[in-house]
């Protein structure tokens, strides 16, 4: 087997050195009756060529060659060959968690740069070395808010990503955390009157997303004032961080939970991505996840180490801030390299293109009879449209033209059937937008 570096005679030699007659002897502690006598039923073994063929066959069964207008938490943005080549260097790809700092300065330095970039983007004071993804980052941010306030009720906007809310509900159930859902207004923003009615004073946090699941930006400074007046925290989540190139950062929020996939990470059918938690310096000891910090060695040379580990499970066990151990270091690195390549100007230009193309797409859509914009609030690169017919039907027809249509809201929002969220990024061409609009127009004109 090509992955195993021993010849039969070397195996024999090693067994003799150990003083064992056979390999079986080394498994004697496994009770006889539980030892497998027959080989497992498994496909393979496959050569490299056969493995590639299997996966190429699977790729051909997917959506290759389609235009897509799906966002809803996962975004197609420019990616760089350079970044992907660099993360594949064995010294990054095949290295362990940097606990042995002296031989892990590459990873630790990159994490320190990642933390810095995340702070610059979010306007927060500290950011961790990464979480699994946005959904678990948001959940951990809520648990953190509960620990910080000693309160167990959270007011969660209905406009937060539905799958993120499902993850939060799974974790909250056994921890005695009560989730109060807060609706939205005609602007698509969180219903501020409902927040007051929900007894804000008892709550650990107001939990929002901006841009939210409908694509609408929340008025975070005002929400923060409202929260802080009641000694409540504002937790906000970002699933589309490219927005931060042009949208005011959530500096007033107390905890920011972010999905960093948009920074050069491929959609890859849902993961791996890179979650982040950013917060205020004074809350750092309640923050989950690894942190890299700057220090020096005895000779005064700058170096980086994993720090404040007394928050973590390997030290604190059942008293830890979280059970998280493995994070998404390689994708934090990918995002770091991507953002360094893009740089200050590139990120700005990318964000401005999203802004412009989404507005062009909205204007084109509104020309289609019966199609109208649903929410009046400001948006970045996603907007919600209402159609005169079922979105499911329209999307089915679009598939025939190799177009994956907008995200149908009816699945998670029964009150929003016939509505869908359209996502436009810098990778969506004008021609694709025009083709989508022409196709929708045709579908709506055809008899039912």
């Amino acid at each position, binding site marked *: 087997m090509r992955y195993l570096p021993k010849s039969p005679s070397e195996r024999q030699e090693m067994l003799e050195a150990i003083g064992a007659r056979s390999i079986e002897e080394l498994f004697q502690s496994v009770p006889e009756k539980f030892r497998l006598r027959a080989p497992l039923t498994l496909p393979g073994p496959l050569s490299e060529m056969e493995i590639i063929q299997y996966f190429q066959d699977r790729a051909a069964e997917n959506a290759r060659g389609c235009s897509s207008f799906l966002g809803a938490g996962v975004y197609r943005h420019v990616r760089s060959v350079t970044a992907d080549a660099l993360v594949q260097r*064995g010294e990054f790809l095949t290295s362990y968690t*940097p606990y042995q700092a*002296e031989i892990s300065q590459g990873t630790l330095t990159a994490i320190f740069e990642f933390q810095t970039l995340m702070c610059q983007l979010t306007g927060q004071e500290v950011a961790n070395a990464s979480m699994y993804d946005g959904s*678990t980052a948001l959940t951990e941010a809520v648990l953190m808010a509960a620990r910080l306030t000693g309160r167990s009720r959270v007011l969660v906007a209905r406009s937060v990503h539905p799958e*993120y809310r499902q993850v939060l509900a799974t974790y909250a159930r056994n921890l005695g955390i009560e989730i109060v859902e807060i609706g939205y207004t005609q602007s698509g923003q969180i219903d501020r009157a409902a927040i007051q009615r929900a007894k804000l004073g008892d709550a650990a946090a107001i939990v929002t997303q901006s841009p939210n699941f409908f694509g609408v930006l929340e008025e975070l400074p005002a929400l923060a004032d409202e929260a802080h007046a009641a000694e409540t925290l504002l937790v906000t989540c970002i699933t589309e961080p490219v927005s931060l190139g042009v949208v005011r950062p959530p500096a007033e929020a107390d905890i920011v939970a972010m999905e960093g996939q948009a920074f050069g990470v491929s959609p890859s059918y849902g993961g791996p991505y890179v979650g982040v938690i950013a917060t205020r310096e004074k809350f750092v000891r309640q923050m989950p996840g690894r942190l890299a910090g700057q220090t020096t060695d005895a000779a005064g040379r700058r170096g980086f180490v994993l720090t404040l580990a007394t928050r973590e499970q390997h030290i604190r066990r059942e008293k830890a801030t979280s059970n998280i151990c493995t994070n998404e270091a390689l994708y934090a690195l990918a995002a770091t390299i991507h953002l360094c390549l893009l740089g200050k100007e590139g990120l700005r230009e*990318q964000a401005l*293109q999203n802004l412009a193309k989404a507005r062009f797409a909205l204007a084109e859509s509104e020309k289609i009879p019966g199609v109208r914009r649903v929410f009046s609030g400001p948006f970045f690169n996603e907007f919600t449209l209402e159609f005169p017919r079922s979105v499911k039907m329209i999307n089915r027809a679009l598939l025939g033209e190799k177009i994956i249509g907008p995200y149908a809201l009816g699945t998670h929002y029964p009150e929003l059937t016939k509505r869908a969220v359209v996502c436009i990024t810098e990778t969506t061409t004008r021609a694709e937008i025009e083709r989508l609009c022409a196709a929708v127009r045709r579908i709506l004109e055809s008899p039912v």
Partner: protein
Amino acid sequence: MNPKVTETEAPAATVRKAARHVIQNEGLIFEKSAPGKRGMEIPPLDVPAVDPTAALGQEFAREAVEGFPEVSEIEVVRHFTRLSTWNYAIDLGMYPLGSCTMKYNPRVNEFVARLDGLASEHPQQPPELAQGCLRILHDLEQCLISITGMDAATLQPAAGAQGELTGLLMIRAYLESQGNPRKIVLIPDSAHGTNPASVVIAGYEVQNIKSNARGQIDTDHLREFVTNDVAALMLTNPNTLGVFEERIAEIATVLHERGALLYMDGANMNALAGVTRPGDFGVDVMHLNLHKTFSTPHGGGGPGAGPVLVKKILEPFLPIPVVVRREGGQYSLDGNRPRSVGRVRAYCGNFGVLLRALAYALAYGPGIRQATEDAVLNANYIRKHLEDLFDLPYNLPSMHEVVFSDALQKVRGVNTMDIAKRLLDYGFHAYTTAFPLIVPGAMMIEPTESESKEECDLFVDAMRSIAAEAATNPELVKTAPHSTRVGRLDEVAAARRPILRWKPADDKELAHDA
């Protein structure tokens, strides 16, 4: 910078693994930045431009991100390439890291994970256009079920710790359906730290149980603990001493007789694959760490994946959605499962990691047993060649790893951390120090099957040479490493005045006060 390694500090000439080599210096990317440079261009805008303030409104618009780097492509390439040379990696040599299973990461897995049609797929695209992705998930589930002898699987958990939580939530949901979720989860003192941390999030109390003199669970002792309040026992098998729990079936029986379940932490599955199946020896629920046993790259700390495998009784409680194979071979996602514990992560988990694990499983097929055998062979070979020089606190048959202690070196003032740091000078990564907690001064060594006899011999040479140094020149070992880019770093200072981000030079004071 002029590293001062004298001849006496350098490893003995007889040690063949490492030689000195020039390392490039490199600042932080922010320190190389200059206005107007960039490393990526995007195609020109093909629609009318908009003014951000007009488009968003004054209160929502921002200027460019302050302090963001401005560097060219070649500077980015050199920066990260230089940083990479400061890392140790599996591609450079052995990681004797006990419990971490740092094995070879096949490159073909990286290639297939990047194929157009897989890497490009959006998790919300309709299932009829994601049949390839769903089949990959289904095929991996079947492989894992076959290897573990369990009945059903979820691939959603993003890492081992999340798998633990998911398994515990399923135990809770099952017991609730029986009328009483119970209160306590038992954990041996040799367990990983994630176990107790996960128990708390699942809403249970942790009760620690002591291992016996053989480092194992004593069934009579266990009987006293398993009351009607006990939901489950979380057990790592082989345990963190690298020893198979010989009375595992009896342990399962003790639990089952009292209505409790057996959770197996599968972190050490690399000792069992193809040899024995947890499903056959009484395990009700377990997780696997695909970044350990199934070779997905560790990437400097992740991503991982922590699939959970369960027996039939727990199947109704699997997280949503569940991958279903319909008659006719069509695949779909079933989210309508009223007894499910809910969702633990958005979408279908770390698909890109799962895909690599399947590529690994397909490469071996039933031959995965050979990998297990080689892993156990390597651990025993290393043990044999070191047991005369290092203390072996539990003299029991080793499987994939062996745990020594620093007792014999301690008399010269040299502890496990010192020896581990000295290994770096010999061109190896450290072994796992100070774990499991039941062994004071633990030195936990797991070579995995990826190491050749030659690499194992080099490791043995290094350890034997360090043992000699500890006896004759303990100061040399206590101050190691001597040849690395930086020496031992001041972790106390790092934690006392945390500097967690870069700030511009004129802002340095702020960075320190923060």
